[in-house]
């Protein structure tokens, strides 16, 4: 007797009908990164927005060059340049309203500066004089975050809290392609989708996590595709096309503000410089590859479009360049001054009230400093 025969007349009850929770089709990203510049859509782009993007791109590039130079002079401990990625940085800052929040990672100094933070204060982490130089509440910019992807749940929590309070505040969080492999990326996206939190995730896919190429980071069709599994839309955009990044982010921010929930945006871009000034990029990528991306430079793309539309006369160009030079000169001058630090500050911000243990250690340091002073006389 076979097993089937033994079971005789047994008829299994069919499982209850299965329904997908969400139709996945509208969540799927386009097959190609969305572009504006050099396409028909460019004619619709707001000239004022293009001018603002242009000014910030030029300023941003100058900032990257200046900060990199400061590492060579020993004024900055390290600088992870975002040269080549300025369109993402700038669009991320410009798309937000004043009441919105930006959650940057260590490479996003430029977005922080474009949001209005003082260029020197934005560099204190990398200079080494204090971890976070600016007041996060003043500009609604979270501290530059070094552990990968850990700022993403913070963005979700903040956006969630704002919504609970009835404020129409949106949080925009930046993360690299490597960071998408971290567990916190998953947890943040999942929380955001379940809570329908007003948050936008922008992945700057610049091709590498230090030396590891995207192919070794993920087997997904694109990073934007990851959104579908969480139940949020994924958008793919040309990360060097400032107008396109701005438009896609603006859509996502609007959706979030109107209660439509989170969006995952993948901006396809490239890191022109090495990971940091301490990295040797020739060990893991060919110059020819870098060259092809240089030809897709975010500033040139925008310039070409603006020229074609007659939006960029020599005057504007000169004014923008001069403003950028001024910013760089000011940055140079202020960074060349030695930071004045008070060692007693070490104990000031561990707890609201120092513990008795910290007070003892504080007294020890004070005695040491006084002895040092006396020795110097």
């Amino acid at each position, binding site marked *: 007797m076979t097993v089937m025969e033994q079971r005789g007349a047994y008829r299994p009850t069919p499982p209850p009908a299965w329904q997908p929770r969400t139709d996945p089709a509208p969540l799927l990203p386009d097959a190609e990164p969305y572009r504006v510049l050099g396409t028909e859509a460019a004619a619709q782009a707001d000239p004022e927005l293009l001018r603002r993007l242009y000014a910030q791109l030029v300023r941003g590039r100058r900032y990257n060059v200046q900060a990199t130079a400061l590492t060579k002079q020993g004024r900055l401990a390290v600088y992870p340049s975002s040269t080549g990625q300025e369109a993402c940085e700038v669009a991320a800052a410009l798309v937000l309203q004043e009441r919105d929040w930006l959650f940057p990672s260590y490479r996003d100094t430029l977005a922080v500066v474009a949001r209005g933070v003082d260029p020197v204060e934005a560099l204190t982490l990398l200079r080494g004089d204090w971890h976070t130089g600016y007041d996060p509440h003043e500009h609604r910019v979270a501290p530059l975050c070094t552990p990968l992807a850990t700022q993403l749940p913070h963005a979700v929590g*903040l956006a969630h809290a704002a919504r609970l309070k009835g404020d129409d505040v949106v949080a925009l969080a930046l993360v690299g392609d490597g960071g998408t492999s971290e567990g916190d990326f998953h947890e943040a996206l999942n929380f955001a989708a379940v809570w329908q939190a007003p948050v936008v995730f922008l992945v700057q896919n610049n091709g590498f996590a230090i030396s590891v190429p995207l192919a070794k980071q993920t087997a997904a069709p694109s990073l934007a595709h990851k959104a579908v599994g969480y139940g949020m839309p994924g958008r793919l955009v040309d990360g060097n096309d400032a107008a396109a990044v701005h438009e896609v982010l603006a859509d996502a921010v609007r959706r979030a503000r109107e209660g439509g929930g989170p969006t995952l945006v993948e901006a396809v871009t490239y890191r022109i410089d090495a990971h940091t000034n301490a990295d040797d990029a020739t060990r893991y990528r060919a110059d020819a590859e870098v060259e092809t991306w240089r030809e897709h430079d975010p500033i040139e793309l925008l310039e070409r479009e603006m020229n074609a539309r007659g939006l960029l006369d020599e005057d504007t160009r000169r004014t923008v360049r001069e403003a950028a030079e001024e910013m760089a000169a000011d940055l140079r001058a202020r960074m060349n001054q030695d930071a004045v630090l008070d060692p007693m500050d070490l104990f*000031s911000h561990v707890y609201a009230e120092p513990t008795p243990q910290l007070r003892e250690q504080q007294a020890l340091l004070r005695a040491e400093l006084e002895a040092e002073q006396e020795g110097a006389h």
Partner: protein
Amino acid sequence: MTTVALKPATMAQALTRALRDAMAADPTVHVLGEDVGALGGVFRVTDGLAKEFGEDRCTDTPLAEAGILGTAVGMAMYGLRPVVEMQFDAFAYPAFEQLISHVARMRNRTRGRMPLPITVRVPYGGGIGGVEHHSDSSEAYYIATPGLHVVTPATVADAYGLLRAAIASDDPVVFLEPKRLYWSKDSWNPQEPQSVEPIGRAVVRRPGRSATLITYGPSVPVCLEAAEAARAEGWDLEVVDLRSLVPFDDETVAASVRRTGRAVVVHESGSFGGPGGEIAARVTERCFHHLEAPVLRVAGFDLPYPPPMLERHHLPGVDRILDAVARLQWEAGN
């Protein structure tokens, strides 16, 4: 007039009361975690909160500890006071990255501009016959992280008072709940006005003259029992309940040891790298000339928490404490 006999409250109920009172007093207090809503938490500490305050104030989260604590960071940034429940000691480990890299140091990173008033409740310790990963004493990890307060109640009254203080604190507090005391009762009367203990003060639970037992959390009742038993052998033991590991109350501890001249530190977590080593060193530094014997430690063994059928061998019990007390009759050359 009839008086209704009051049923004594358990520690778990006192914790619930503390959460409820804190939520009622301050609309920015939010509770979040796994199963804290309809179920009321696996230990029922959040019982009824979702019903009373709504799911926005007492929220069942997805099952992800880093996500729970990480989103709590963002909520605190926006002015809320999140109280996070970690389901069990060992399941808090996925959240360590958030705890150590952000929660503990956000005030410091931002030079005081962004304090995070987060309470992380962690049921901890053994003695309830839990299977693997349900009995860890993880306090050594927390106390090694500057920026966190670490407190643990041993009485029902302290469970209430310390949790209220933790939630009111502008700094993050790891609130360790001794799970085997969840169902313990004492004279705590929920009808009476409750005191809220400031964090950082130890208390003498039992005065004595011949030696001090320094302990906290689940080991406090064990030490009190040991002190009773020691009377028969002529020892009059003082029992100090630390209540707070960070900040540490050197004063109360040192004053006690100076009186008695002898000390044993008792805790469940492992001895090597455990809190006892730190405490013994602090006591020695402050009381060297008063000490009649080295400061001894009675702790859990230095092994991953054993299976429940063997845990009684691991946990410091009355006999092991009494053995240590006997060794305090120390003479040079011993």
